[in-house]
């Protein structure tokens, strides 16, 4: 019973974690894409300045300004490369050796991305597992010092709280149903 609850909690946290990773990944990707656009714009500007002979003696490297953007996650960088390759693949001639080469590179990058994501997930799951509430156990010293009656009382405490919270979920569903019925009777709910 306790194990099942623990598993459920673990799975719930795992799902939440995956959601969080998805969101972070998307945000990272968007930030990466924005950074890339900015970098491209700056490079274009620098090239235009160089062409016009207006670089001057500032010695500034336009790429140096992008340093803060350089801490994008590996995932978003990889996504950028994948995106570029996909674009090139779409533009290439079907059946040409160039397309075959690009496809091979793309498959390799997809493999890398998958590995990277798996590694990140594995590390995060390990961390979550560590941070999660450990199953209820009695320590060695407690087992020795605590009377049988004390041990039972302690287990009972754990069980009472767990049972009560389970009942609360069931009762909440009943209350929701009753409230919805009331609002239906008052013709306040559509449908």
């Amino acid at each position: 019973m306790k194990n099942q609850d623990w598993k459920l909690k673990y799975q719930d946290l795992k799902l939440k974690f995956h959601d969080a990773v998805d969101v972070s990944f998307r945000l990272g990707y968007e930030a990466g894409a924005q950074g890339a656009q900015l970098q491209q714009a700056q490079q274009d500007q620098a090239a235009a300045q160089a062409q016009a002979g207006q670089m001057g003696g500032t010695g500034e490297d336009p790429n140096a300004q992008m340093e803060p953007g350089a801490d994008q996650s590996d995932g978003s960088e990889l996504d950028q490369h994948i995106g570029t390759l996909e674009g090139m693949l779409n533009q290439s001639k079907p059946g040409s050796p160039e397309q075959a080469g690009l496809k091979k590179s793309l498959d390799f990058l997809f493999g890398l991305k998958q590995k990277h994501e798996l590694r990140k997930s594995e590390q995060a799951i390990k961390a979550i597992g560590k941070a999660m509430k450990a199953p209820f156990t009695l320590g060695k010293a407690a087992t020795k010092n605590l009377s049988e009656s004390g041990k039972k009382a302690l287990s009972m405490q754990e069980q009472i709280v767990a049972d009560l919270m389970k009942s609360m979920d069931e009762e909440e569903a009943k209350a929701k149903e009753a409230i919805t019925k009331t609002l239906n009777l008052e013709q306040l709910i559509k449908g």
Partner: protein
Amino acid sequence: MYGISSSGKEAIEIAISKMFDSLAYKFLGNIPKLRDKSPFFSSSPKFSLAHIFIQAMNNKEPNYFERDVLRGILNSSYGYVEGLKNRTSSNIVESVDALVREAKTKGESISSVQVAEVISVGMEKAKSDMKLIAEAETTKTRNLGHAMDIASKAEQQGIEDPTVFFIVVRDGLLCSECKHLHMLEDGVTPRVFKMSEVSMGWHKRGDDRPSACGEHPFCRCSYSMLSPGWGFRAGFVSFIGEGYDEYKKQRETT
């Protein structure tokens, strides 16, 4: 603009009230205040606060005074649940009413999904409070049961102010507060107190007096008595010798 009718609000309050009465019954057992509301309770709870109290008292039949202590515990716990019930009921009625009013202002109707969402928000807070109440009250009840047992044993042995200590559960969940209060600096030997030194109210973090009610909600430390002549060897309760006083020894060395 009209929201829910007064009878509708009353019906919502009754639904929430039923929910909390049922939970209180499961938590506290068949106490007099709940007996009048019993028609919808079909079965007795497997374990309740009353069970934990008796179990902590070494499973013995409580005498008049112990029954009175138990009655007091159940009444105060019921008070907390009642308080939460009233607060939750008001919150949910207000939230649903506001939802209805807003919809009516826009000339729309509300959906059952919107209602469920509003109730869920109110219930989330109630759940977290209920868990806190359950954890704090079970801890308090268990340790007060142990305290009753200690008082009765001490009386039998003719000890006016017994030496007591807390048995911690040594695992990764043992908190620093419990460790500091219940263990000596060696991290192995339990710290002993006279029963008169132990606080009977809720513990405040940082206070150097442990509390018989537990140091925090869901504190797993158990209150126990150390008989004269007994002490600790490597953290385990052991008989040291006739006339040995662990309390005196600990106070002399610290």
